[in-house]
């Protein structure tokens, strides 16, 4: 084994380990159930592993890269042979047996529905910033957008949300 390859694989393991919980949460927020999230998580691991030579060495850039992979997995509904993985089957089973969270209040459900009613690209931007905790610049990287374009779209989406949700108009500082 070459030192370069050993370092690369070690970097891959470390970056995945640092981000796996956020990645699974990201996938969970965009899939209908835990088993589907597990399925997408496995596919994300497979693709990231195959393309690990492209993994940036900078931790922040690597995190962004992984979320781009996860986003592409969600956009591509095809799933590969990773489904046959025994390890993935066990994760899906675990996800199915997790204790369900209590129901949210009505106003939370309504606000969530309002986000879903936004144009898909705007909804995804709002989710990345407000649900996944990315800055608008990081969201721009994941969505392959110009940062200033991203900021203006985000402001527009917030205006739309406030309008739909019945809140008074004001400017965003996001």
């Amino acid at each position: 084994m070459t030192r370069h390859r050993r370092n690369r694989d070690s970097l891959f393991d470390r970056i995945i380990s640092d981000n796996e919980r956020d990645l699974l949460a990201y996938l969970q927020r965009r899939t209908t159930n835990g088993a589907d999230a597990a399925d997408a998580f496995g596919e994300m691991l497979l693709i990231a592993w195959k393309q690990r030579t492209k993994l940036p060495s900078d931790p922040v850039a690597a995190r962004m890269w992984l979320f781009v992979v996860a986003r592409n997995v969600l956009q591509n509904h095809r799933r590969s042979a990773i489904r046959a993985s025994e390890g993935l089957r066990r994760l899906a089973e675990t996800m199915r047996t997790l204790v369900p969270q209590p129901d949210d209040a009505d106003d939370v459900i309504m606000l969530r529905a309002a986000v879903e009613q936004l144009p898909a690209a705007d909804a995804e931007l709002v989710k990345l910033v407000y649900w996944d905790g990315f800055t608008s610049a990081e969201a721009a990287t994941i969505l392959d957008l110009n940062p200033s374009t991203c900021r203006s779209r985000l402001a527009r989406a917030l205006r739309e949300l406030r309008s739909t949700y019945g809140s008074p108009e004001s400017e965003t500082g996001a």
Partner: protein
Amino acid sequence: MHDLHFEDRLRAAAPRVSVPLELAEHRKRIMRDLRNRRRKRSTLWAASCAVVVALVGGGTVAVAGNGTHATWNVSADNVLIIPGPDGQTCSGGINIETNGIPDDSELARTARAIVASIDLRKLDTSKGEAALAAENGKPYPDGTPGTVHYTPQQIKQLAMFDAVATILADELKARGLQMAQDGTEPVFVAAQMMGCD
């Protein structure tokens, strides 16, 4: 409503998620599966042409050869039946698949004829089996953590596919045809197996 308050409420509207505490262990298991699968695949690619193997789910299977339809709705150019684990039968169909060339091209037709003419029962795979067995217990050559472990069934299957791929490449070459062109494989061997793992 102040805008920051609205943004806080927006953050609070994130769908609730539950991530297993033992996610890292799950991820390591999945990665092990991936790496083992990759290792099997790389062995096949080491042959002189590409072989893709798909494992079919449980149950029984009947496969018919030489272009006739099998009970699981696939046509097979040749049929492989060897002992599987736990007394079951490992069986499957071997097909020539095309990649970027017409299915009825000379190369595809010739490759199919060659594969169909191979008597799999008489193939001498002892050399390939010995080479694979010798890898057992050794570190993965690509740096994957752990050591190689092939079951006797896997050794038999892999040696068989390597032998088929090698014969095919040699025969095509002898007939003035090429398996690989500009780094791509216009035809490759695909196998669907059942009861083999």
